[in-house]
C-alpha cells in the first residue's frame, strides 16, 4: 500500500483535509446540510469540524464516560444523538454543540441509536431492550426483553423499527411499539439492513453467512462462503444491489430479475484486509468501502453487481500509518466523503466527477 500513500488519493477522490479526535473514532455523520461533520470517539468525546476546511467548530471531551458507542444525525441535520457506555443518550444541537436532552437509561451500555426516517422518533437499545423517544427526549414506548442483547437496529421507510438479536429480527410499529412481525432464524445476527422499500431484510451472521428474508412472501435464503462474519452491509438507493463485507473482498448481490438466488455475485477485489464499512452514495450505484488495512475505495457498479474501483486512497495524511477504517460518511450531496479511523483520524476527500 506504500505506493498508494506516496501518490495520495487517486481517481475521483481528491485531497480535502484531515483532522483528529481524542481516541478511536467510533462513528460520525454530516449535519447542517453538509457544512459540519460530527464525530464521537472511544474516550467519550464528541467533536465537530467545518465541512470545507476541517477546522474544529466545537468539542466536548469525555462527555460519555467509558466511550461513545453509537451516533446518528437527525434527518433534518440540525440535531444528532449520541449514546455511550455511561448508559446515556444525548440529543445535541449540531450548530452550537449544546446538549438539548439527556436521557439516562441506567447502568448499562447503550449500543445503538437511530432516528426514524421522518425524524419523529429516536430509538436506542440497551441490553435486551429498545426504547423509543420523541425529539423532546420523552419516552414513547419501550419493548419487552428480546431473547438476547439487541445487536443492531434500523428504521424502515414506513416508520417501523427493526431490531436484530441472536435468532430473531423483530419489527415494531414506530409509534405504538406493538410487534408487527418476527423473523426467526438460529444464528447470531451481527448486522441488519433493509431495502429502501422495506421488503428485503438482510442480516450478517456470526457463522460467516448472510441471511435474508422477503417480508412480502415470507421466503428466506442464505448466502454462505464468506471467510469472515459480514458485519458491513449496504443497499443502494434503488434496492437492486446489496453490498456485503465478510472478508477482504466486497461481495455484491443483485436483486435484479429473479436474483440473487441462483446468481453469481459481483466480487470487488482491492482491499488486502477485511472490509469494515460499506456505504452507498445517496443516489446511483456508487459504493464506498473501507477496510482494516486503512484503504478506502469508491466503486462504480452495474446492475448485476459487477464493477470496478473509480477512486482509491488511504486514510490519514502521508506522514501517518493508515489504521483500521471504522466508518465512512458521504456528504449529503455525494460530493464529499469522510472516513473515521482507529487512530482517531478523520479524513475528508472531495469526490469530483459529478
Amino acid at each position, binding site marked *: 500500500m506504500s505506493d498508494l500513500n506516496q501518490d495520495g488519493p487517486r481517481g475521483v477522490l481528491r485531497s480535502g483535509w484531515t483532522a483528529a479526535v481524542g481516541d478511536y473514532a467510533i462513528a460520525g455523520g454530516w449535519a447542517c446540510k453538509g457544512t459540519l461533520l460530527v464525530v464521537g470517539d472511544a474516550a467519550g468525546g464528541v467533536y465537530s469540524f467545518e465541512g470545507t476546511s476541517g477546522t474544529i467548530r466545537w468539542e466536548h471531551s469525555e462527555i460519555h464516560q467509558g466511550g461513545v458507542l453509537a451516533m446518528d444525525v437527525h434527518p433534518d441535520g440540525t440535531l444528532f444523538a449520541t449514546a455511550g*457506555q455511561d448508559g446515556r443518550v444525548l440529543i445535541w444541537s449540531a450548530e452550537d454543540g449544546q446538549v438539548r436532552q439527556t436521557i439516562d437509561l441506567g447502568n*448499562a451500555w447503550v449500543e445503538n441509536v437511530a432516528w426514524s426516517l421522518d425524524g419523529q422518533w429516536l430509538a436506542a437499545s440497551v*441490553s435486551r431492550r429498545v426504547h423509543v423517544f420523541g425529539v423532546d427526549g420523552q419516552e414513547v414506548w419501550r419493548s419487552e426483553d428480546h431473547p438476547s442483547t439487541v445487536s443492531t437496529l434500523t428504521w424502515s421507510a414506513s416508520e417501523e423499527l427493526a431490531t436484530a438479536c441472536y435468532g430473531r429480527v423483530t419489527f415494531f410499529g414506530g409509534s405504538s411499539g406493538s410487534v408487527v412481525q418476527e423473523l426467526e432464524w438460529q*444464528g447470531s445476527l451481527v448486522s441488519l439492513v433493509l431495502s429502501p422499500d422495506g421488503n428485503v431484510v438482510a442480516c450478517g451472521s456470526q457463522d460467516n453467512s448472510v441471511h435474508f428474508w422477503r417480508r412480502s412472501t415470507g421466503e428466506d435464503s442464505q448466502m454462505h462462503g464468506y471467510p469472515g462474519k459480514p458485519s458491513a452491509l449496504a443497499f443502494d438507493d434503488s434496492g437492486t444491489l446489496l453490498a456485503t463485507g465478510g472478508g477482504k473482498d466486497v461481495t455484491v448481490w443483485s436483486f435484479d430479475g429473479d436474483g440473487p438466488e441462483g446468481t453469481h455475485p459481483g466480487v470487488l477485489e482491492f482491499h488486502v484486509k477485511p472490509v469494515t464499512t460499506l456505504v452507498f452514495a445517496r443516489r446511483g450505484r456508487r459504493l464506498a468501502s473501507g477496510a482494516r488495512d486503512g484503504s478506502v475505495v469508491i466503486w462504480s457498479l452495474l446492475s448485476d453487481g459487477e464493477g470496478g474501483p473509480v477512486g482509491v486512497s488511504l486514510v490519514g495524511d502521508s506522514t501517518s500509518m493508515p489504521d*483500521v477504517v471504522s466508518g465512512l460518511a458521504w456528504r449529503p450531496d455525494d460530493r464529499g466523503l469522510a472516513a473515521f479511523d482507529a487512530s482517531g483520524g478523520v479524513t475528508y476527500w472531495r469526490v469530483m466527477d459529478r
Partner: protein
Amino acid sequence: MNTQQKVPVTILTGFLGSGKTTLLNRILSEEHGKRIAVIENEYGEVGIDQALVINADEEIFEMSNGCICCTVRGDLIRVLGNLMKRRDKFDYVLVETTGLADPGPVAQTFFMDDEIREEFTLDGIVTLVDAAHIEQQLGRSDESTEQIAFADVLVLNKTDLVGTEGLDTLETRLRDMNRMARVVRSEKADIPVDTVLNLSAFDLDQVLERRPTFLEPEYPFEWTGVYALEPGRYELSLAEGPDPEMSLVVKTAQGSDDAALREGAEWCVRRYADPAGSVTPGDDVPLEAHVSLQLQTSGRKSFFIQVDAPVKVGLYAQHTAEEFDMKLLRTDNGVEIPVEVERIWVAQHEHDDEVGSFAIERSGDVDPERLNAWLSEILRERGVDIFRMKGFLSIAGDPNRFVFQGVHMLFDGQPDKPWGDMPRLNQLVFIGRNLDEDAMTKGFDACLI
C-alpha cells in the same frame, strides 16, 4: 497498522461459593499499575477502583449448523470488541463466569471469532473448587465436571474445611479428570497471583516443567527399593501406616540403574496382575510373587524373606517405605540393610469419572499426511467428547517443532522453535469424556514413520 501484542485473558470459573470473587478481588488489589478490565457474568461484589468492571449477561450463541464447537459467547465478543477500541488499551482481561457456565463456548470464542482472535489470547482457564462441596457437585452437574476438565489451574479452595486425607483423595480424583492442570490448595483463595495470571497455559513446555512426570506411565506400585543381600534370613519391619494392607512383589536379580528399574517395573506390572497371596505378620514373603501384607494389627509388624545366594532384590511396594517406616534387617544380628537405590513411580488410580485425560509420548517423526487424516477423523468423530488437547509434534522433514492446541473440534497449530540438538519426539495430551486411550494411541502410532 497496529501490531501490538495480544491482550491476555484469564477465565475464572467455579461454582457459586467457590471463591471466585475473593480471588478476583485479590488479583485486582495486588496487580497495581496494570490496567485490568473485568467482565462479570455473576453480579458479585467487586469493589476495586482501578479496574473497569463490566457486567454482562452470559449469552450463548449456537450456530445454525448445530455444531457445539462453533458455539460462542456473544457477550464476550461484544464487550471485548468495544474494549479494544480504547487507545489506553487494557493490559489484562479477567472474565468471571457464572457458576453454571460451560467453559467450552468461552474458550471457543477465542478461536472462532476473527476479530477477537486478532486482539486477544486466552492465557488460561482457572477453576475454583470448593473442597467441601465439589464431591456432591461433581455427581450432580455436567458443568462442574467440564469446568474441571477445561482448567489449566485448579484452585482447591476452602481447604480448612476438609481434612488432609480428604484433600489428597479429592486431588487424586481431579488429577484423573485433568492431568494437564496444575493443582494449588488455598484456604481463602490466598494463592500467589502469578499462579493464575500470565500462565501461557497453552504452552505444554510449561506444564512439563511444573510436573515432569505427567506424561509417564502409571504403575500399580508407588515405590521401589533395591537392596544387596548375602544369603540369609531377613526381617521386613513395618510401622503403622495409611493402609491396612499393602501389595508387594520382591523381584530378584534386580539391577540398580534406570533401565534395569524400568525393566523391573514392567515385569512387576504383570506380577501385580496376578491375584495377591495374603501374608500375615510372622510369615515368609515368597519371592517374585504378588503378595498382600496384612497390616491390620497395631504396632510394628514383621515379615520374613529367605535368600539362599548373594542377590540384589527389588521391593516393588504399593506405598513408599517412608509411609510405613519400612526397614529391612538381618535376623541374625539385627543390622539394618541400607537401601541401594530408591525410585518413586506415578501411582495408578481407579478412573471412575467419565471425564478423564491421558497422554501419548513417542519419539521419532510423524508422517504429516497420515497425521492429518487421523486427526481429522478423531476430531470429526470424537470432537464433541474431546474437551481440550495440546502438545507438540515432530513432523518428518520439518526442522521445527510443531505445537498445537485445540478445544473440541477446533484445532490450531504452528511451527515452534527448531529441534536443534533436542531429541525429536511427540507429546500429546487429551482431556475428554469416555476417551478410548488404547484406540487413540494405536491411531497415533500408525502415523509414526
